[in-house]
């Protein structure tokens, strides 16, 4: 009698995935260990970090119109700050942004283009960097294009 046993044995056919998994795991661990991740950081860019006067003796080119200065004084008040510039009085970034936007509109209505306004932040020596960055950001949010720091006032 002929037995029909061996014919029904099933062999699993297909690629052997074990080496692939090994290599993929090695790549994964390497990337996790070697990679550095950019934290949640970004940058406030300044094309004129410090506004200085009297650096050059060269005469200005003919027809040159100096920028209209808008000076913002920043003083420490308790744990916060106070920014003043003409009629502007602000002690938080949001209020300062709104007031600077109004100021920019007034400049524009008076015929001064935004790119001809030079915002100069004049801090006291002991103003915290955090507060200066808030003032700086407010000026950028108010769509001013030229923002710079000046040497500290007394």
């Amino acid at each position, binding site marked *: 009698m002929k037995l029909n046993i061996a014919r029904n044995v099933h062999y699993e056919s297909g690629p052997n995935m074990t080496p692939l998994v090994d290599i993929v795991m090695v790549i994964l661990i390497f990337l996790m260990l070697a990679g550095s991740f950019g934290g949640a*950081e970004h940058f406030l860019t300044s094309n004129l970090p410090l506004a200085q006067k009297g650096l050059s003796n060269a005469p200005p080119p003919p027809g040159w119109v100096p920028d209209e200065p808008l000076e913002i004084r920043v003083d420490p008040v308790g744990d916060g700050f106070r920014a003043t510039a003409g009629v502007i009085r602000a002690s938080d970034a949001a209020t300062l942004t709104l007031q600077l936007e109004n100021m920019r509109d007034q400049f524009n209505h008076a015929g001064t283009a935004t790119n001809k306004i030079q915002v100069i932040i004049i801090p006291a*020596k002991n103003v915290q960097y955090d507060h200066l960055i808030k003032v700086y950001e407010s000026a950028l949010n108010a769509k001013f294009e030229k923002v710079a720091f000046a040497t500290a006032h007394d």
Partner: protein
Amino acid sequence: MRRRRRRYRPIPRYSEASVNVTPLIDVVMVLIVFFMLVARIGISTGAEAMTLPSTLTGVKIEDLGNTLTLNVHYENLPQPQVMALIGGEMHELPISDGRGNQPLMETLKAFRERNRDFKVILRAPKSMPYSYLEPILQACAQAAVKNVNFSTEVRMEEVRP
């Protein structure tokens, strides 16, 4: 009379007992693609851990090769201590060394002369007074470095009156 065929009881199939690795490979491949896209391998700007100010607005800098990151420390120091990664090593760049040299300004000037697109990334603790920041900005101005980027943390919420 119809002859009934004799039915054999089927022999149980032999199947290889193994773990199904297909979902594992799927997940691992997704992770690898994620890490390859997000991770920056071999790029070190020399940024030191510190509490940065936070802002809503800001830009990303793509060409970090043209930048020099200045880490500023001020605690219990008469003048700011500026640390920067130059040539693969962290160097201190004093504002003034007491012998009439200005290492920070001279270093920035050398970078600027070699590379017209040179940028400075400034990292300073949020509580630092402006008196420590001012000489660094002066050094940048004297070295004709026009592009200074203040590094800040991303603030997620917006507060408006």
